[in-house]
């Protein structure tokens, strides 16, 4: 079943066409990688999907519903969660609270859905703490602790540390844990392995493979090709805002257009390349 379908999505900034006519679909349970040189428009594509930017044209449908131009606050309620390229954790919040924020959209009792008086209701319920609100919070706390344990000894011992005290790699882990706390139907991962060394990347790969076996649908941007090859069912290659190739990892690595985008024309003439030069920020 198709979970996400993107049709001729475009966005330009000033004179620069950051994303042009991008179309693809993503089936439920699939893991798809988006690769391409820096500046190819990958993050802009993510921003369009997650509602942080509005497309100039094209449409996005998620779970059979048109969501083009929806605000991020609304998309998370539909089950679309993301991580950020540069690790946007809430610096002054504890690791546990960061993860709990991820579940905000799932709060049913604490955040009454009364249109105009919603904020007032949310305030009063926080002050009065009726049993349903307390039970909901307790369940989420327990769930968040479990989630932290998925990251082995990385996060659980630091549950009460403020996020600003974490290493870069741990912040990326917190981001992933936070996104998972939303129980997303689709997880958008923007360079989850950036800034991680080899063993850390491998550890992340195991975690993501785990998620994949559990049926988590994922779309990820990643420069570390090994990770992409191991993890992804399909790969979409972007260059200069457009999709230049799509298919299995084995197919795209032989595609002349891809080789040209990464290595230039002379390399393209020599045929297949095995390792895309690693580009980290």
């Amino acid at each position, binding site marked *: 079943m198709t979970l996400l379908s993107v049709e001729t999505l475009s966005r330009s900034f000033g004179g620069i066409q950051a994303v042009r006519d991008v179309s693809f679909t993503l089936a439920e349970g699939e893991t798809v990688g988006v690769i391409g040189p820096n500046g190819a428009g990958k993050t802009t594509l993510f921003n369009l999907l*997650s509602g*942080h930017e509005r497309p100039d044209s094209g449409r996005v449908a998620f779970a059979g519903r048109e969501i083009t131009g929806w*605000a*991020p*606050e609304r998309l*998370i*309620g539909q089950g679309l*969660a*993301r991580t*950020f390229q540069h690790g*946007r*954790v*809430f*610096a*002054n*919040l504890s690791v546990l*609270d*960061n993860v*709990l*924020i*991820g579940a*905000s*959209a799932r*709060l049913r009792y*604490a955040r009454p859905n009364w249109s105009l008086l*919603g*904020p*007032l209701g*949310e*305030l009063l319920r*926080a*002050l009065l*703490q009726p049993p349903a*609100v307390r039970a909901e*919070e307790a369940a989420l706390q327990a769930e968040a602790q479990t989630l932290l344990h998925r990251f082995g000894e990385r996060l659980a011992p630091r549950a009460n540390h*403020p996020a*600003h005290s974490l290493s870069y790699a741990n912040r990326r882990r917190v981001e992933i844990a*936070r996104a998972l706390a*939303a129980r997303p139907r689709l997880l958008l991962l923007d360079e989850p392995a950036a800034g991680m060394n080899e063993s850390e990347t491998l550890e992340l790969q195991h975690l993501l493979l785990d998620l994949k076996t559990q049926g988590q649908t994922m779309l990820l941007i990643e420069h570390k090709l090994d990770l992409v090859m191991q993890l992804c069912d399909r790969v979409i290659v972007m260059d200069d805002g457009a999709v230049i190739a799509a298919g299995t990892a084995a197919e795209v690595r032989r595609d002349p257009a891809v080789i040209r985008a990464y290595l230039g024309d002379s390399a393209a003439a020599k045929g297949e390349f095995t390792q895309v030069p690693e580009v980290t920020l």
Partner: protein
Amino acid sequence: MLSALTPWIDYTVNGLVIGNIYALLAVGLALIFGVADLINFAVGSVFSFGAYIGWVCAAYLKLPLPVTILVVILASALLGIVIERFGTRPLQGRSRIAALLVTIGIGLIIDQLLQIIFSPDPRALPSGLPDRRFTIAPGATIGTLDLLIAGVGSASGLALWLFLSRSRIGWAIRATAQDSEAARQVGIFTDRMNMLVFALASSLGGVGGLLIGMYYNNIDPSMSFNATLKGIVAAMVGGLGSLPGAIIGGLVLGLTESYGIGIFGASYRDLFAFVILLLVLVFRPQGMFQRAGRAPEPLTGTFIAWSRPLRLPRPVQAAILLVVLVLPLAGQPYVTQIGINALIYGLAAMSLTLVAGTVGQVSLGHAALLAIGGYASALFAANLGWPVALTIPLGGVVAAALGTVLIYPAFRMSGHYVSIASMAIAEIVALVILNWTGLTGGSMGLSGIPPLAIGPIDLSDARSTYYICLGLVIVMALLQARLLRSHLGRSLRAVRDDAIAAKSFGLSPSRYKMIAFLFGGFGAGLAGAISAHLFSYIDSNTFGLDLSILVLTIVILGGLGNIAGALLGAVLLVALPELFREVAQYRELVYGLALILLIRFRPQGLLGTA
């Protein structure tokens, strides 16, 4: 036909003359904003300083006008250099709001020093120019001083333009403004450029003060406040950082005010400035004359230092509770009175620490919430005869509701734009109170407000008042602590730390700012209502910008977002100066110094940010 036009020609001349002064202030602000990336709230104090230096030269030493102007330029430039070197330079790389708050502190200190040296009484500042008026239209004239002001305005504008566009140093300044990191790379001493810009801006401001003093033949230290506000309005209207925008902004503001006075009368004068400011902030935050570029401010970067709140051990907490409980029994009415004051400020500070600290909206208009609560409760009690025990919480509810509606336009802003917008909204509230005579008594204020009582039991004696305030503080503190422990605690702080990431997880920043203002508005309204019944008299000046700044200083002293810190800050800044009476008269000096030293050396406050 022509005679009907005559007053309009006068208004125009007047508006352009005053507009020239505003433009001088705005250009200074724009220069500093462009290069040093901060809004200089001390601009008005430099303006007053210039006026007083002018008074010393012209009225006291009887120096000729050109010499006076020269001395004012040099002295003001020197003051600007001092402000840059010791005030803002140490804060490079910190959030912009930090430097903004420091300039507020510097302004307080300069104002208080001027008051101490020259007394708060107004002084005459004659221009010494021959009083000749030239007829420019039938019935409309223009005087020598008008021409001098116009001349100084245009000449300094032209000189500045030539300096920035033609001289090497001017290029270096512009390079620093565009990208100070890159400027440093190519060998520009950006610190010196900052200093130079402060000197330039301050000399413009000082000359502005001199000219306006001569124009009205009257100076007093309280003119700082107005000058700061008008300069900021003009600079924002033109688009912060744009020099031509600042000049046009100044003239537009001067004309609008002048025509507005002509149509509606003088008491509405300031209302125009603030309504314009608010409209610009909401609809064109980049200014009237600049094209919308990227967002004027990154969405993160609030004034929150990384720290962990200090927890007081249980025995210490118990001891403090015991002391505050028995304090009025000590039989020292004066001490009890000070305690009441500290408690009311504590109540206000707790509400602001939620807004400015927990959700990161550094409001400079908190006093307006107290004013709304105070007036609401006083009017319900005095006009409708409702019991005070009911009107006080009602005052809190009105402040929460009305305050949240009023601040709503600022919810989409961030950083120092919030501070300026909240200040403008608070000024508008004060001006509406002043002009809505039928309801509020206007400038006469409200007197005979019923005293504190529950039913027939009179509770207006100091001891009962103390316990009422203490009870309210304890209840509100416990409620706020409960709120911070709930999911709202983390949600509010998440919105503060990173609004974009918060949105991604379903937390709409506006919604959570609204929740903070609802709760904070209630607490602040309570504080205002209590004080109204306590003083039995309030007017539109009771809750002004000075109060907003004091409460913010209390909050920063205690640690942003920290409830216990807000209470400790109130005791230290309100009660302590009262206990040492010699200090009390230099209070503004103490507040200013406290603000500067805190932001520089202990931005997390005494008990840590929460």
